[in-house]
């Protein structure tokens, strides 16, 4: 859909404005129905028995006593799911292997992490279901476990999968390993590059797994009828994905399964996979009654996927004038119990914001006895870019150059060939850096114990399969149906683009997210694709309606079709016929639809191409308490290229939300495991996400470098905002204290310890 871009400004009636969102009233009155808010008549309660061991062979499972308990209607174990062959299938930003998925939803030969599902029960009450779980006898052979990514890579480490041999290594290894694969991206010659360098900085970093932390736990209601028709109500980022996974795991026809997405209470990537859904379906099939399953918060932490913890080594060489001549990185990402960490996108992103000649990035995907990681907002990017942006900051310090100038000197731009392959189209790296330099924040004096940091970030963004329908109702109003769940204002932006195209009021269009029976395939809401892809499809559907409206008027007026045009919400004769007939409104066209050929609508089914990266530069001020080591973010400015902001308030919201999550990642959030391999902080009290009193207002600047491949210039904006904060905070702390932190989270005990050590050496500024 390449076309001349519309210029911003007064010509747009809706795009770029801030109307109320269509689902606003439902969400402020409690009317909106989320995953756990549906109750079906006769529904049972489903509960999951989970492994108490991080690594154990399952010798046997005896469910007979549980099955006999009064009120228990069904019990399922791995026996109820057919094994799947090993094959990797692309799933958006990640790859999946059904051999692993079937083992992930229900342990087969082994339990691979504490919390791994072993069996599930459906009963007439939650109390009975819990009682039944206690009656299931599991004979475990407890095995040694491994939690840390570097330990898991050592020879002699406990092996999770006896059939895992490291891919991407030549010659192919003959012994099993926890390293699922090795990957590398090479551009130019780093050895030659480092020889030209005046200054080289090499640092190793560690990051901890962090959870997406959506406030709504996973929830599903599944109902399977006697003839095998299945209905699923679920909180998910992609109900077509849920349908595909469930049909595959249960061996049912896709067409038998209809999935409706509830309102979704946050996802951030974590609701792109299945956990409870296949279990609820299997239970419902056995019990012949609807089954509702809702995770507790503890289950969410123990058994749904956080993002990887990682070990990253970065080495960068630069000339005195700031030109980076060589850049190297080695990334070790833990994937959890099954292969498939986001190390590949981590490698690809690492140096993507920069125009470099010599780059070498090597990545390792490593399994450990933790829950399998799931996507989390720009999966993989924040980890590698945190390390790179920290070292770039240090280089700037070493050569005495302003860190924004250093980045400008090396910034990627249109035509830059990225180390991971492609040449960039128009991108906004330089524009965000210039905006940062011009921002008052960058020049405001700092107070005592304060420091300022800057960091940039990159994320690819994706398009993909998308269907949207738009029906003209009999009174001229419109029904817009999209298939990408609305997590943060999508319905508003789609409605605005449709209203803009059609020249009608937003109040004339009712927008809904359709179920899997109402539209063709839709890939999920993720990869920052929903406004981009469903927006593109919405524009196409609207144009189809406009074209059809012209056709109907032409028929009525007995004119050739090309003698009629659609303008400002009306259909009117064009050219020599102009003025001969009165323009017709959509309402009038709707009135003649029946007698001119039947209902009018547009139905767009596309594979949205042309998604474009979004780049950001963030400025962060921190204040460090010299006595406690507590770091407070006192000012923050997020600057990012949106391509074009359809609804600027929700674009700002994405920037602010990503920053808050990034600050949590930087300062507090982490998974804490005991020596027994069990998670010690599976709740919001001990896994501390930022609360309102932890944060300042978060300033935003929307830079607009339009994406030429989208009708309104849209780039995805949802993921990039979480990329820069960890380095921005770390760089600010280094600026305030003189101490470079290379371990996340930079929590008070760690900061205090490092400050004390630096003070002893006279190396601390506070």
């Amino acid at each position: 859909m390449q076309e001349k871009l519309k210029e911003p400004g007064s010509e747009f009636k809706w795009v770029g404005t801030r109307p109320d969102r269509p689902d606003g009233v439902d969400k402020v009155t409690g009317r909106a129905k989320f995953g756990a808010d549906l109750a079906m008549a006769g529904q049972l309660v489903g509960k999951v028995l989970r492994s108490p061991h991080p690594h154990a062979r399952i010798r046997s499972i005896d469910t007979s006593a549980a099955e006999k308990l009064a009120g228990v209607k069904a019990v399922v174990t791995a026996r109820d799911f057919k094994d799947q062959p090993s094959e990797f299938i692309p799933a958006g930003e990640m790859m999946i292997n059904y051999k692993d998925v079937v083992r992930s939803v229900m342990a087969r030969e082994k339990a691979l992490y504490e919390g791994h599902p072993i069996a599930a029960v459906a009963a007439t009450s939650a109390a009975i279901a819990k009682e039944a779980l206690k009656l299931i006898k599991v004979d475990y052979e407890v095995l040694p476990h491994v939690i840390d990514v570097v330990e898991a890579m050592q020879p002699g480490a406990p092996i999770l999968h006896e059939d895992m041999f490291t891919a991407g290594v030549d010659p192919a290894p003959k012994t099993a390993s926890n390293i699922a694969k090795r990957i590398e991206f090479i551009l130019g010659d780093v050895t030659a590059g480092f020889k030209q360098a005046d200054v080289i900085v090499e640092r190793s970093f560690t990051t901890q797994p962090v959870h997406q932390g959506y406030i709504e736990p996973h929830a599903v209601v599944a109902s399977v009828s006697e003839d095998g028709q299945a209905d699923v109500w679920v909180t998910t980022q992609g109900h077509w994905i849920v349908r595909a996974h469930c049909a595959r795991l249960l061996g049912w026809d896709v067409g038998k399964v209809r999935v409706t997405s509830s309102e979704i209470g946050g996802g951030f990537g974590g609701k792109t996979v299945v956990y409870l859904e296949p279990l609820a379906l299997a239970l419902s099939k056995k019990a012949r009654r609807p089954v509702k399953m809702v995770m507790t918060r503890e289950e969410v932490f123990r058994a749904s996927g956080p993002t990887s913890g990682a070990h990253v080594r970065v080495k960068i060489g630069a000339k005195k004038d700031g030109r980076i001549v060589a850049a190297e990185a080695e990334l070790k990402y833990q994937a959890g119990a099954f292969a498939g960490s986001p190390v590949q996108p981590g490698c690809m992103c690492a140096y993507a914001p920069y125009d470099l000649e010599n780059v070498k990035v090597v990545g390792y995907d490593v399994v450990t006895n933790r829950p399998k990681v799931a996507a989390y907002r720009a999966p993989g990017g924040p980890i590698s870019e945190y390390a790179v942006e920290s070292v770039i900051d240090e280089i700037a310090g070493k050569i005495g150059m302003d860190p924004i100038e250093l980045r400008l000197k090396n910034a990627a731009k249109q035509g830059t060939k990225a180390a991971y392959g492609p040449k960039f189209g128009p991108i906004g790296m330089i524009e965000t850096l210039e905006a940062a330099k011009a921002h008052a924040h960058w020049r405001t004096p700092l107070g005592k114990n304060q420091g300022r940091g800057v960091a940039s970030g990159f994320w690819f963004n994706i398009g993909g399969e998308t269907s949207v329908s738009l029906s003209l109702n009999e009174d001229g109003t419109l029904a817009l149906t999209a298939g990408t769940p609305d997590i943060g204002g999508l319905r508003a932006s789609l409605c605005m683009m449709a209203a803009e195209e059609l020249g009608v009021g937003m109040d004339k269009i009712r927008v809904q997210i359709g179920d899997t029976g109402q539209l063709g395939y839709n890939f999920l809401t993720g990869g920052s694709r929903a406004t981009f892809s469903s927006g593109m499809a919405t524009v196409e559907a609207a144009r189809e309606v406009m074209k059809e409206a012209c056709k109907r008027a032409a028929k009525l007026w007995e004119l050739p079709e090309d003698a009629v045009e659609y303008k400002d919400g009306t259909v009117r004769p064009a050219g020599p016929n102009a003025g001969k007939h009165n323009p017709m409104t959509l309402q009038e066209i709707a009135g003649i639809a029946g007698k001119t050929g039947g209902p009018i609508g547009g139905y767009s089914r596309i594979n949205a191409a042309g998604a474009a990266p979004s780049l950001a530069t963030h400025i962060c001020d921190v204040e460090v308490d010299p006595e406690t080591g507590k770091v407070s973010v006192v000012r923050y400015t997020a600057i990012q290229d949106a391509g074009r902001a359809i609804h600027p308030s929700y674009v700002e919201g994405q920037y602010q939300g990503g920053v808050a999550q990034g600050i949590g990642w930087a300062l507090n959030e982490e998974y804490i495991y005991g020596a027994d391999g069990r998670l010690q902080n599976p709740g919001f009290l001990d896994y501390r996400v930022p609360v309102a009193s932890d944060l300042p207002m978060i300033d935003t600047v929307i830079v607009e470098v339009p994406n030429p491949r989208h009708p309104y210039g849209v780039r995805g904006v949802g993921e990039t905002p979480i990329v820069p904060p960890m380095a921005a905070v770390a760089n600010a702390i280094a600026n305030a204290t003189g101490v470079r932190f290379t371990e996340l989270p930079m929590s008070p005990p760690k900061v205090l310890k490092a400050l004390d050590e630096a003070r002893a050496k006279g190396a601390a500024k506070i």
Partner: protein
Amino acid sequence: MAKHHVTATVNGDAVEFLCETQETLLDVLRDQMGLTGTKEGCSTGDCGACSVTIDGRLVCSCLMLGVEVNGKSIATIEGMAHGDALHPLQRKFIEHAALQCGICTPGVLVAAKALLDKHPDPSETEVRYWLAGNLCRCTGYDKIVRAVLDAAAEMRGA
């Protein structure tokens, strides 16, 4: 064991219900009364999604038992608007785009109303500390805090 008979007022209406001893107020509201606007995010009192007021006092309904509200007056998100008129907080939340996914929104609104009922002119810091018990993972709180301050100003006639 016999269930307990409880009478109370919910959003101004007299209600009576039977509940088990261990049943939380949150479960009673959601499962028995169908008032699903009050959300369960953690069931340990850490996230505030289940915020309601009991005789005007802000509580996490997951931390109270159904039997504890006998004779008391409960206000939930469903009772905040009056007829077609949204409460100023509800209007300002929409206007300021102070919600994204919306799962925390009912709890945040109930908590914010409890604040403004007591302190009509809070500072930004007071709003932030009052709402520290209500987790939001989407917004970074910026627009929430602005919406609360703006609603407070409007309600004061400022």
